[in-house]
């Protein structure tokens, strides 16, 4: 009994340690390594693939231009399984490789929260896409955000609906997961501040098979404009179709998923005429257009925000390391924070002291299945 357990544990430790030792032995110094935690399996595997595409595209560009500090840059990818324990393990596995200089974290806020204690321990810069405002506001100096946070998406949706569309009776529908709850809250706050508190605030659970009760609630609330935070595209597709079937045709301004490529494909005509805030829009700037072109050339499909932020993250991170002239974490940190007026695919990066790079959103419109850029709304605070 004791023997077996002891042997088992010893074997376990040895089995774990051996590959790590081997890796560090033959991988010294030839390249600059950047770690990336991304869902390869699990519900967000789809988005994970696009994130990898975006990162690899930027990587190719950086390496073509001579790499970083005279070396080629290499991406080390670990699967976070779309779960919190998964990303903790994936990140700590990457962090154990001492030659990795910086990391790309998750687009999911809860995952960033789960890995945050380890990030502080490791003390190296981590680029993130999670949009929960708290992430960069809770004293963790190593998180840098390459998407505008939810305060801005809520404010932009409210601003566009109230000022541009002129609608004041809002119905809000949001997922009850972390992303949807935070977004719904931000939108409610922004609307209340603008003197137009929502008439309906309706949550739903992810992977619902039916949205009839939600649609009927929207219909009955008498709202003249709809604001949404949907997490999964198939939920959004079902909701959109049932919304139209039950005759609700009020203007709709939603979070990025409304204008995501896969939702457009799934929901078809049901999403025609909707507006979505998008941290990424193909026509919003020259930088975005350049990114789109090379993405389309490489992958034969349209890019979206899932691939745009890792693209910007790799680009800016590489530039920052070059500027810092060293892989010292503190120097990289200073260089990232010093990045101002950088034209990225997602928009113009002006890093603030919290590590937030972007402060506004694009508004785009689904015009008969084509996503077209409408306007950009930026805030200064």
């Amino acid at each position: 009994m004791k023997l077996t357990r002891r042997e088992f544990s010893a074997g376990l430790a040895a089995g774990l340690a051996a590959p790590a030792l081997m890796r560090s032995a033959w991988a010294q110094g030839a390249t600059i390594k950047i770690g990336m935690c991304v869902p390869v399996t699990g519900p967000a595997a789809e988005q994970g693939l696009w994130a990898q595409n975006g990162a690899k595209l930027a990587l190719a560009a950086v390496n073509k231009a001579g790499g970083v500090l005279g070396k080629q840059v290499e991406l080390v990818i670990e699967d976070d399984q779309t779960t919190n324990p998964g990303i903790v393990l994936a990140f700590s596995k990457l962090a154990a490789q001492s030659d990795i200089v910086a990391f790309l974290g998750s687009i999911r806020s809860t995952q960033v929260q789960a890995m945050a204690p380890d990030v502080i321990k490791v003390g190296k810069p981590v680029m993130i896409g999670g949009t929960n405002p708290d992430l960069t506001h809770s004293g963790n100096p190593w998180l840098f955000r390459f998407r505008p946070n939810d305060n801005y998406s809520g404010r932009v949706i409210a601003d566009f609906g109230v000022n541009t569309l002129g609608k004041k009776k809002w119905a809000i529908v949001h997922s009850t997961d972390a992303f949807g709850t935070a977004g719904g809250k931000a939108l409610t706050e922004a609307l209340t501040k603008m003197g137009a508190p929502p008439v309906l605030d309706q949550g739903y659970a992810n992977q619902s098979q039916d949205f009839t009760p939600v649609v009927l609630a929207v219909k009955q609330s008498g709202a003249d404009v709809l604001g949404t935070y949907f997490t999964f595209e198939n939920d959004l597709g079902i909701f959109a179709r049932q919304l139209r079937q039950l005759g609700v045709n009020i203007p709709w301004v939603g979070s990025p998923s409304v204008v995501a490529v896969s939702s457009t494909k799934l929901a078809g005509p049901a999403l025609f005429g909707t507006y979505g805030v998008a941290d990424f829009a193909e026509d919003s700037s020259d930088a975005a257009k350049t990114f789109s072109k090379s993405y389309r050339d490489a992958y034969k499909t349209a890019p979206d925000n899932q691939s745009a932020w890792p693209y910007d993250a790799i680009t800016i991170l590489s530039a920052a390391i070059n500027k810092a002239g060293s892989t010292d974490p503190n120097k990289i940190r200073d260089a990232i924070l010093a990045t101002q007026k950088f034209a990225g695919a997602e928009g113009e990066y002006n890093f603030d002291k919290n590590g937030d790079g972007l402060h506004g959103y694009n508004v785009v419109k689904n015009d008969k299945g084509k996503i077209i850029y409408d306007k950009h709304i930026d805030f200064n605070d």
Partner: protein
Amino acid sequence: MSASDNMIPAPAVRSRPLIVRHLPYFIGAAVLVTLAAGMRFDGYILNILLQATTFSIAVFGLSVVLGLCGQINLAQAAFFGFGAYVVGLGTADLHLNFWLCLVGACAITLVAGAFLGMSTLRLGGHYLAMVTISFQQIVTLVMINAIGITHGPDGVANIRRPELFQNSQSYLAFCVAMLAIVGYLVWHLPDTKLGRAMRAVRDNELAAGVNGIDVFRTKIYAFGICALLGGLAGGLFAGGFAYVSPDQFSFAESIVFLTMSLLGGVASPIGSVIGTGLLILIPEWLRFLKSVPGLYLAIYGLFVILIIRFMPDGIWGFVADAFTRWRAHTKAPPAAAALQLKPATTGGDIVLEVTGLSKHFGGLKAVDGVDIAVKRGGVHALIGPNGSGKTTTLNVLSGLYKATSGRIVLDGTDITTMAPHQRTAAGLGRTFQNIRLFRSMTALENVEIGAERRGNTMVGKGDDALTERAMEALTFVGLGSRANELISSFSYGHQRLIEIARALASNPTLLLLDEPAAGLNSTEKLELHELLKRIAAQGLTILIIDHDMTLVSEAAQHITVLNFGRRIADGESMAVLRHPDVVSAYLGSE
């Protein structure tokens, strides 16, 4: 509930004092704790070890409820999450002491587990599976939606650890120490009274009930312990990772826990540790397959099927099985003194008095107003043709059926409304027509369960006294030398003798034998007759139900005859057998 087939019997060896035998375990555990505290791990290995350690404790819970007691629990992740949230919210939001929160986590999960058990454990099998799934889903929904309390999907961050173990490495050492302690307790649970009761319930609920075990309560204990260990593990997990969120405690995680338990071997804590370790490590090892999404989880699923197929007792069961068989055959059982039967004599001259007993199934009057008076000492027989209601009577007497009306008094105590296990405690022992032994146990362990009857004055305190009593009973029926063999290695006739020994070990006031001669050959019948004589010689009253007229007429002094649910004759043996109604009842029916 069915007997599960992937259990290994725990060997019953009690030669050396407990502390000496277990010293190596504690030395081993101490070495492990020291290693955990002293070895230098990087963050990745530390996280994996911490996860494996805390998960193992939760899986221990499953080895109790599933391995020992045979009940399914598909909500272990919910209990785990319960514990994690109590510690998380307690330390992060309420700023309470970690230890206080950990104790609170254990207490709350224990209550939740026992409560859930109370509401559903009378069912079992698939129903229990479904209730636990439902509980799991509701807990997850509450975690996500009760934002005011749980922070909803954001989860709980900044969970604190105790002052003493701020450092991750020392916290890991602490968790390993907890694992060792809990592992020790779970390892020894099967050899305690409660543990034996759980195993008996798992192997055969009916037999467990009539051998003095409160089946329902035993199940609740098992479920409560399982939930408590889940809560403890969750609390430790929360302290270790400093952040918890609802998606960590979903139904999928409960499935993972269950798979861990079955993979390693459900019957033993060692199996739990092996299974947990492997299921945390396998996906890590298979990460190299990550270039194709889904491939490694697909392989994981395939492994689950293959392991269930080819290693039914799990990995540890596979190893332990060979070892146990080898040991069971070589270990010589201890010698035993002669069995003493001293039936209680609190009542009067009549040991069992049945008055106006009826049992109706809908319109069918299986037993209708029967009176039986069994005199103290000697052998009383209850006979009747097929369908006469004698087996129904026996089942009403032992409490498997509730009487429609009438009264049953055993040695001065009214037992009419008692549950089977209470009747056993009151002094009723019985055997079954179709043998009901606990098949995963040895002969000795089966008989020990009988000896454990509450109110058994013939057995002293402690495990050794129990073993001694059981050995005496086995020796009495002539099987002492094979005490440590598994039930499956005994012939049918010998199994019947073990069943009788199990009843005798409890020193009953009245012994009910249901067709003891059924299925025996003529030599075995003779042996049985001899055995009955020796039992009666010690003053124990026997009520025997049988077809076998030879056995009945030779062994019994008094006979009661039933037909069509009514008593048609009663009195001294030879007189009753010549009674015209009896003759016609038998001739007419055959």
